[in-house]
């Protein structure tokens, strides 16, 4: 039992650390640190910088342009990325769709889409949830009916992050109404510029436009855009959920957040003394730091299993639940520390300290963390059924 990196891993870490120091634009770092919403240009340009160094599709195998890193190397990379203050990469194409195409896609689909994901030519969004199908995803109703060589899509998707930036969408659609609901779902790729698609923005409680509702009105999609077989969509969606658990807890980003909170607590003054000298605040920060240590070591256990080629142990099931709880708790602390500055809304640095400008926005935004990607309650249902054998 040990928690040490090997000599090679330490060298790798040094290399990655140096690269971020050299290549992360100061303005991007500033925006990311204080929680300012990044523009599409910010994100695309940073993705391209990462790609130029071979640091974008880090979870992909060599044959598709990835670096063939070990799980430990990927973990180190993500930790250094976060510690440097760099934003997390866009995941829809790289983390979600890429592995699906590699596992279930045709040769044509792989050749057509994978290089475009890698080179940031396409922006993918995910069409899963519907107004009537949230936690109960399998009850989704968007229809895809085959008409000649094309599927005709009718229905609506909701909570579609960055649909307004995307030129492609991977979607779960219903191709069969006369079987078990899971077995009637298919996975299909949709060109967002096709006629019949309407995107309506949804502004979330952080006052920003990340989310959308997408409407499909007789949208025609070529048959060859189906991934896998008809009725295989649910299997593919589940495959995605079990993929890549080693960074799902967001430990590295939370560590940086905590470090920044402590720094703020040392520099901000309340009642004539640094905030950190407030005995209650001190203990609140300490309590979150301790929870974060527990999360980090749980994450290490999952990582060590993955790196050794073993299936992650049962502890990996708590990473999302506990990780998002910690993210929320830290954002809550920031709001509490901000005091009256928590009133600031889309203000600039003439109104108050930079570290508090977006504190409330971030807190508001992160309410979604325990809802997206399978809500905490759904995660617990799954653990109860699959791991604890309760039914």
């Amino acid at each position, binding site marked *: *039992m040990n928690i040490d990196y090997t000599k090679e891993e330490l060298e790798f870490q040094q290399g990655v650390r140096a690269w971020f120091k050299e290549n992360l634009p100061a303005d991007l770092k500033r925006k990311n640190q204080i929680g300012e919403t990044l523009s599409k240009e910010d994100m695309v340009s940073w993705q391209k910088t990462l790609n130029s160094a071979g640091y974008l599709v880090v979870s992909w195998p060599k044959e598709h342009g990835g670096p063939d890193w070990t799980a430990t190397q990927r973990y180190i990379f993500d930790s250094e990325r976060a510690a440097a203050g760099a934003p997390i990469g866009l995941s829809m194409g790289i983390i979600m769709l890429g592995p699906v195409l590699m596992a279930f896609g045709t040769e044509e689909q792989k050749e057509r889409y994978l290089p475009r994901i890698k080179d940031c030519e396409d922006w993918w969004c995910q069409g899963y949830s519907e107004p009537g199908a949230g936690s109960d995803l399998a009850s989704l109703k968007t229809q895809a009916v085959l008409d000649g060589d094309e599927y005709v899509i009718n229905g609506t998707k909701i909570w579609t992050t960055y649909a307004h930036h995307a030129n492609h969408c991977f979607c779960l659609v219903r191709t069969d109404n006369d079987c078990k609901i899971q077995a009637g779902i298919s996975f299909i790729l949709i060109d967002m510029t096709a006629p019949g698609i309407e995107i309506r923005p949804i502004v979330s409680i952080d006052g920003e436009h990340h989310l959308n509702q997408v409407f499909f009105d007789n949208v025609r999609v070529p048959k060859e855009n189906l991934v896998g077989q008809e009725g295989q969509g649910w299997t593919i969606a589940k495959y995605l959920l079990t993929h890549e658990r080693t960074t799902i807890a967001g430990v590295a980003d939370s560590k940086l957040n905590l470090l920044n909170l402590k720094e703020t607590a040392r520099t901000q003054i309340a009642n004539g003394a640094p905030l950190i000298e407030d005995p209650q605040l001190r*203990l609140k*920060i*300490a*309590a979150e730091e301790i929870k974060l*240590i*527990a999360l980090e070591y749980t994450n290490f256990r999952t*990582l*060590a299993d993955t790196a050794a080629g073993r299936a992650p142990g049962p502890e990996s099931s708590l990473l999302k639940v506990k990780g998002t709880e910690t993210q929320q708790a830290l954002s809550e602390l920031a709001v509490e520390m901000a005091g009256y500055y928590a009133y600031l809304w889309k203000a600039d640095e003439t109104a108050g300290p930079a570290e508090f400008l977006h504190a409330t926005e971030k807190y508001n935004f992160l309410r979604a963390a325990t809802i997206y990607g399978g809500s905490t309650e759904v995660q*617990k249902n799954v653990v109860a059924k699959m791991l604890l054998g309760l039914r």
Partner: protein
Amino acid sequence: MDFSFSEEQTLIKNAVEKFIQNDYDFETRNKIIAGDEGFDRGIWKQFADLGWLGISFPEEVGGFGGSAVETNIVMEAFGGGMVVEPFLSTVVLGGNALAFGGTDAQKQEVLAKVISGDVLLALAYGEAQSRYDLSDVKTSAEKKADQYVLNGEKTVVFGGAWADKVIVSARTSGDQCSEQGITLFLVDAKAEGVSVNAYKSMDGARMANVSLNNVSVGADAIVGSLDEGFGLLEKVIDYGISALCAEALGSMNAAYEKTLAYVKTREQFGVAIGSFQVIQHRLVDMFMAVESSRSMGMMVALKLGSRDVVERKKAASAAKVYIGDNARYCAQEAVQLHGGIGVTEELDIGHYFRRLTLFCGAFGSTDYHLSRFADLGE
């Protein structure tokens, strides 16, 4: 990075778990704690023969050269069986005090006998007014010629009722709460002037208040350095925290597993209560509490040996806070989910509850260690 046990460690784990399963069931334990002495000397000898008492000590003194990881493997299994034999007081506290600070003579004469199962130890650091503060020491050791004369009373001494020798913290200089000026002395429990007021603790084990009335010992009784006993004491207690956290983890895990099994079989309204979502989520929360605590237990065992003393202290305090909170939580949930039967003396669940409740306050409460952690800074 690797969190799996070595082949040797796995053998130890299997052996201790097998012992608990075959030779230390709930009934056996109840008989042991109902007996006059409150623990079983035959079982203690068995532990010695199996090598468990020497598992973490250096080979030069007859140990097996293991680390806190091995100690925690044993303690976790003991927690599952709620073992009352004085492993914590004799091996982890007394034994480590000698292993870290003892003279060669103390190691050869006393530690070797700890490993062979022939000597029981206790560490007497607490006093009526000191609460969790290890530096608040009124007990005095006054130098008279070549002797030290000890006077004072040490309270709530783990294993104090059984100890052949007691390691006592006493003030050789400085103010009552000064970290400087504390010295540890190895005192024979039968020595003149030592009186042991033994009593039962809530989990059935025996402890004691130990009074020292003009107890005279030589300089060869000093463990560690004169006036510098505080650092040693703190280190030993940090090792104690790690070991006790492992024991709590074993008890939490047992309480969780028994509760999970119970909700699958207990029927109300015509169905197993484990089919209710409100019960299912509570079991998932217990499961997460146990697994997260397991991570924290690994963390502290790995960090104890750190050369950076602050890192060691922070690790011990973090583990005590985290596992303390989660131990209390699991104990309360186990009782609640068992319903009426959970509050009875008859069922083992109530005994896990007692044990875990005691754990929360041992070596410092959650609040105490949260403050200690915060004070240690970056």
